[in-house]
């Protein structure tokens, strides 16, 4: 069964890429590391050995490596435009409170602003190219793909644009893209409001990973003077639990920090599990930080509800059947000691939790059961 592991698949892909060196179309200069999780690590200020190595090699103090400009002219006749999409996206993504999908849509809005097209059809073609290029830059980010798809759907489906002149249509698209950021921010508020009915005084909540939405939920509960305890998992190797416990302590919330393997031990004290989601897939399951599936399995066997807080723009038309069905999102793992070269390390950063282990989804569309996700996606994309 070892040949089905994600690392084995990635090794094969790496070999294939080595064979097709000259024809490689992957704009990411570091295909072995997921840019998504690298950015999140930068948000959390996590110091890893890889980061130290890059810092020593880099001249500037910027922790995120810039993409290599050399292969760009070979791929595109106009090197400025695709380069600007990536740079625009990276600059937006560095803001810790901005969602990936919003950063993607803002990057696409920048494409619209800098576009020299004179008709809607040309603008759509340019947007399509930029969107596809952006998605292929980081295939592991589901929010990025979902955000681009949402914006492209808006562009192609809005028939009112056909009756306006080009300039007003263009400004309308830009305005829509700007409003999307507000929608994202309001979505967190809506989800926090919806979740308050499920948090009662004296309850104990287990959280995993640092999700901005989950943090917003707990913050609002604390502001409403509710008394509850939060169990944070350590969240190796990123130590996201440490950061979340730090933020919650500032709000005077009672926090208990667990190592990742202590989940089953403490599950009998837990009243509910709160997790965020990197993506919500069509089956109603979620893709989230590694360990979510494990926690959901334990909670399900001990009859504890698992609640997912996710914005609706994270809904993606994916249908994974098992863990290996996803494109692996790899990240560096620092064990603190040198790893022998013969030892293989599982470096996937996320897992897939099937819908039967989830109780409810808190979204800006309302509180949904997992089976409704597919209905929303069908009505959205059909």
């Amino acid at each position, binding site marked *: 069964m070892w040949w089905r592991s994600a690392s084995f698949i990635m090794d094969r892909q790496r070999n294939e890429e080595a064979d097709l060196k000259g024809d490689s179309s992957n704009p990411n200069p570091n295909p072995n590391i997921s840019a998504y999780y690298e950015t999140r690590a930068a948000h959390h200020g996590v110091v890893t050995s890889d980061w130290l190595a890059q810092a020593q090699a880099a001249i500037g103090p910027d922790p995120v490596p810039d993409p290599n400009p050399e292969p760009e002219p070979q791929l595109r006749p106009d090197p400025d435009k695709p380069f600007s999409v990536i740079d625009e996206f990276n600059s937006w993504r560095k803001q810790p409170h901005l969602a990936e999908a919003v950063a993607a849509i803002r990057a696409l809005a920048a494409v619209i602003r800098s576009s020299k097209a004179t008709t809607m059809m040309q603008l759509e073609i340019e947007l399509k190219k930029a969107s596809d290029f952006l998605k292929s830059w980081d295939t592991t980010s589901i929010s990025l793909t979902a955000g681009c798809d949402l914006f492209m759907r808006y562009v192609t489906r809005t028939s009112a644009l056909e009756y306006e002149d080009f300039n007003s249509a263009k400004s309308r698209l830009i305005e829509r893209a700007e409003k999307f950021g507000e929608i994202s921010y309001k979505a967190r508020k809506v989800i926090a409001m919806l979740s308050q009915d499920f948090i009662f005084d004296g309850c104990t909540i287990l959280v995993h990973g640092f999700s901005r939405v989950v943090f917003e939920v707990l913050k609002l509960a604390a502001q409403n003077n509710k008394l509850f305890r939060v169990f944070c998992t350590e969240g190796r190797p990123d130590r996201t639990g440490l950061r979340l416990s730090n933020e919650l302590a500032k709000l005077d919330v009672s926090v208990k920090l667990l190592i990742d393997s202590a989940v089953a031990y403490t599950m009998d004290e837990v009243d509910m599990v709160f997790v965020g989601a990197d993506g919500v897939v069509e089956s109603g399951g979620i893709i989230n930080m590694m360990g979510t599936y494990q926690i959901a399995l334990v909670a399900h066997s001990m009859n504890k509800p698992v609640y997912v807080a996710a914005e609706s723009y994270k809904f993606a038309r994916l*249908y994974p059947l098992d863990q290996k069905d996803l494109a692996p999102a790899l990240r560096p793992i620092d064990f603190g000691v040198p790893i022998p070269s013969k030892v293989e390390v599982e470096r996937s950063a996320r897992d897939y939790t099937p819908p039967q282990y989830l109780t409810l989804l808190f979204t800006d569309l309302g509180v949904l059961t997992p089976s409704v996700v597919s209905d929303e996606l069908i009505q959205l994309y059909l």
Partner: protein
Amino acid sequence: MDARRAPRAVIDPKVRRVGFFAPPEPDPISFEVSPSANSLSPVMIPPPRHSSENLGLHTRLAATSPSAQESFAAGSYSSSSDFFPAPMSPATSPYSSRIVGGDGDFFAGGKAASSFPRGGFDLTATMASSVPASELTTVSVVNAASLSIRERKKANKGGGSAVEVKDQALNTKQQKKEKTSKAERRALQEAQRAAKAAAKAEGNKASGTLASVNVKPAKAAKPPQKVDNASVAASEKKGGDRPPEKDRKKDVPQPRLQYDDKSRVEKAKRRAVVKQTEAKNRVELFRHLPQYEHGSQLPDLEAKFFQLGPVHPAVYKVGLQYLSGDISGGNARCIAMLQAFQEAIEDYRVPSEKTLVRDLTAKISSYVSFLIECRPLSISMGNAIRFLKSRIAKLPLTLSESESKTSLQSDIERFIYEKIILANKVIVKHAVTKIRDGDVLLTYGSSSAVEMILLHAHGLGKQFRVVVVDSRPKLRGKLLLRRLVEKGLSCTYIHINAVSYIMNEVTRVFLGASSVLSNGTVYSGVGTACVAMVAHAFHVPVLVCCEAYKFHERVQHDSICSNELGDPDVISTVQSREDVNHLEAWANTENLQLLNLIYDATPSDYVSMIITDYGMVPPTSVPVIVREYSREQVWI
């Protein structure tokens, strides 16, 4: 309001006609009035109640003596015209209230009017006043009456025979007089109905005292309003009943015949083209499904082929192919049926005095009945037939015959291409993304969609192995196996009893489906549920490939209430092993029944994903697809 005014238009000509008949009537009226006057002379009533009491008495006398009904009713109407020369709706209610009050007084108190000579005088004066009406007015009124009569005849088709009987009974001299008399009778009936309704309403108030009725005339006005409301409600109910009935008829694609109902079965036999012989030993649990002996059908139909009955030759041929099993599978049968319908529509001619929409729909229905007799319809065929009938019903009447036929044929062609062929391509495109190098794929039976998926994945250069599960009696997996091996796929062939042994090394299960129902139940060939349950127990994902046009809004939890029975003899024999044929004469054994089911139902719990032309959806989203599909079907 219009409904109320119509009967009054009928009343007016009657008044004037009565004027003409006034002279021959007075003697019998006066003769009948005098005995009652003599008997009631001791009781005295004040003059203000005079007119209402007189009317009440007339109503009572009309009810008691049928022979004198016409004259007394005429009298009452003439007096009404006298009291209200300008008929208006607000003026009518106090008049009716007075009538009701009069009836109440009469029946409750037992009082009677005493001054009949005055009443007689009033009637005479009214008759005299109506006589001077002009002839032109009378003629026009008669025409209006005849028009209204014709309208009523159309409305009341069932009453036509009764009207004819009345005509014969009357034997009046002139046609105009006949029309007038009909109008009179209808007015009489309506008056009687109104009187009965008023009496019932008054009966409710019998508990009240006479004084309250007299002092408060407003209360008496309520009963007619109630009657009107009741009639309006009744009409609304009648209108509301029809649409659900139509919907119910449309929503039943499966044969409505329950074959344990003997009377209906015999009726169906008389109309049937195919001569069916019922099986002797029928399984009790499935008596509601048709069970026939299979040997006698095909030769009988073949002999009849050149007799050119009501069935088109193309449809006849497809029926024979269904019967012999040459065409099997939901997609193949549906395509063959639609192509046969295309040929039938090509040769179709509209009969004289008939519309294409109605006659063609009836023709298609007869063809469908014939095909059902050859083999019961699948869900896909039912949906296709529903689509075709809706297209026929929506043809504009302005189109010529050839244009209508061309439009229908192109609709059928587009249905075949978009809903079946193109849908399969989309399903293949989605399903191939779930096949990876090193996979072991298991499939059961022979599904065209699954076969296309495997061949396409092989064409893409993916390295995988296929396990083909098969089961008696049809052994259709052999055909699939042969086609896959020809293309170079690495295959394993097992029987269904070994599926639990091999499931350990399987990574994906691909299944076809005859239909997917609203609750996510997969209705497919018998054995599918068994394979899906074993795969679920081994935590192997089960992927069902089904086109959206095979979805259905029905809900089904088992495979008993709706299924199809195959030939029992196929079970008792083993191919190429005649020496082990121990059940040769099983039909003669009374306590032995052989059951050959065609379909089973897989609960949605055992299905991981349904791959359809709308994408990959969980079983819980089938109702959404059905709703979107129904909406889209209308747009086509």
